[in-house]
């Protein structure tokens, strides 16, 4: 695997990001960090809470042309973004397209990672990914109990294969990330405790994503069960301090005291759909542009003109800020393929 020291372009961008955050009191401000690109929305699983509507086959056949994938990566690099995350859907349903995309992106420029359910990730595939200079693979695990995970995912063996996938990733020298979604329904469960301990014991990194009332969950109308409350948040902070291998995107990963909050990453990490629409993050389904019509620089500048995304927010807007959720994320039918338009939902005074 190409380590950080073998990726000089990445190191330069990461240093610039680190120095910016340090000078900005540990906050992300308007420094951009990366791209989350939904390469294709087709998936082999039917997760209860999918935020991309994959289980209903939404836009399953659409893909971003490789020329555009290449252009997005070049622009992201030019803007100094150091992270590039490919996700779906399930990327490994179409490995040929995935590896073509990797060639277009040139992962040697980025801290490059895949987010996958791990179902098709065997040792041979892990080896191929490592050879393609993938730095990290994130695999979501919903429970330490096999039956519970498989029920949520809608397919038997999905837990075992996901757990095996993390091991293959580690064997091939990439960073294994065990992703856990935490909501009000499970924040204090023994299950979360066991998953965090397992990840720590295996020398994985744990990435906590707070449950967000969007996608399939928006339709289930379970917001009160989904959104973490104050006590739940305290629980996450306690886990962070105790385990030290736990990250959240809104936390400052450089803070050795495991306390600082980087701030909400909207616009700092842009989410791009297979149609080229650019949303402010994977979970806030608000469109600020399209890569076929504008440059990433223009789109980013527009996004940061919206005060909700420009100003520091210690809360994840999509998962923790109830006022933001009810005002801007509760439109009937809102999804990654049917996002609200920023110019429609924000008033003049929302822009700076």
């Amino acid at each position, binding site marked *: 695997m190409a*380590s*950080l*020291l073998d990726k*000089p372009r990445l*190191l*330069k961008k*990461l*240093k610039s990001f*680190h*120095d910016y955050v*340090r000078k900005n009191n540990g906050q992300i401000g308007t420094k951009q960090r990366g791209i989350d690109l939904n390469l294709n929305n087709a998936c082999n699983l039917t997760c209860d809470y999918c935020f991309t509507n994959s289980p209903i086959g939404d836009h399953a056949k659409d893909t971003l042309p490789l020329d555009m994938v290449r252009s997005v990566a070049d622009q992201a690099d030019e803007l100094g973004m150091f992270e590039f995350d490919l996700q779906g859907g399930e990327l490994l349903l179409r490995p040929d397209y995935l590896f073509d995309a990797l060639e277009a992106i040139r992962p040697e420029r980025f*801290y490059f990672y895949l987010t996958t359910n791990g179902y098709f990730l065997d040792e041979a595939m892990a080896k191929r990914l490592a050879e393609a200079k993938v*730095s990290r693979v994130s695999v979501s695990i919903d429970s330490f109990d096999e039956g519970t995970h498989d029920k949520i995912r809608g397919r038997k063996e999905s837990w075992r294969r996901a757990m095996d996938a993390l091991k293959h990733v580690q064997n091939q020298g990439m*960073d294994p990330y065990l992703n856990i979604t935490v909501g009000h329904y499970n924040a204090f469960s023994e299950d979360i405790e066991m998953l965090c301990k397992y990840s720590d014991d295996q*020398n994985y990194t744990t990435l906590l994503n707070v449950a967000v009332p969007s996608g399939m969950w928006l339709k289930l109308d379970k917001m009160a069960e989904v959104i973490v409350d104050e006590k739940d948040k305290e629980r996450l902070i306690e886990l962070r301090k105790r385990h030290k*291998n736990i990250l959240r995107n809104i936390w400052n*990963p*450089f803070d*050795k005291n495991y306390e600082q909050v980087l701030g909400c990453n909207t616009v700092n990490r842009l989410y791009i759909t297979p149609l080229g629409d650019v949303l402010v993050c994977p979970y806030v389904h608000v469109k600020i542009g399209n890569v076929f019509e504008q440059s990433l620089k223009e789109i980013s500048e527009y996004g940061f003109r919206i005060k909700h995304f420009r100003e520091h927010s210690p809360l994840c807007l999509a998962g923790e800020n109830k006022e933001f959720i009810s005002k801007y994320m509760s439109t009937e039918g809102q999804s990654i393929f049917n996002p609200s338009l920023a110019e429609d939902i924000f008033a003049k005074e929302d822009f700076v």
Partner: protein
Amino acid sequence: MSNKEKYNKAFMESFSIEETVLGESLEYNTIPEWDSIGHMGLIAELEDAFEISMEMDDIIDFSSYKKGMELLSKYEITFEA
């Protein structure tokens, strides 16, 4: 505080490790704490401790405890034998 002590302190504070871990066998990625994020923290600690700004090539070449001492000599930081 001597340069060696400052150097060791930067490692210990960046990675939250004991002094006994320091030595020639300590290299990038040989302990969980010295990963990409840890590397940034270490460089920042060293830049603060020695009041220097390291060149990108040196940050890339900073692959071990031993190599780091060699690189810092470029910044007129010497370590007693």
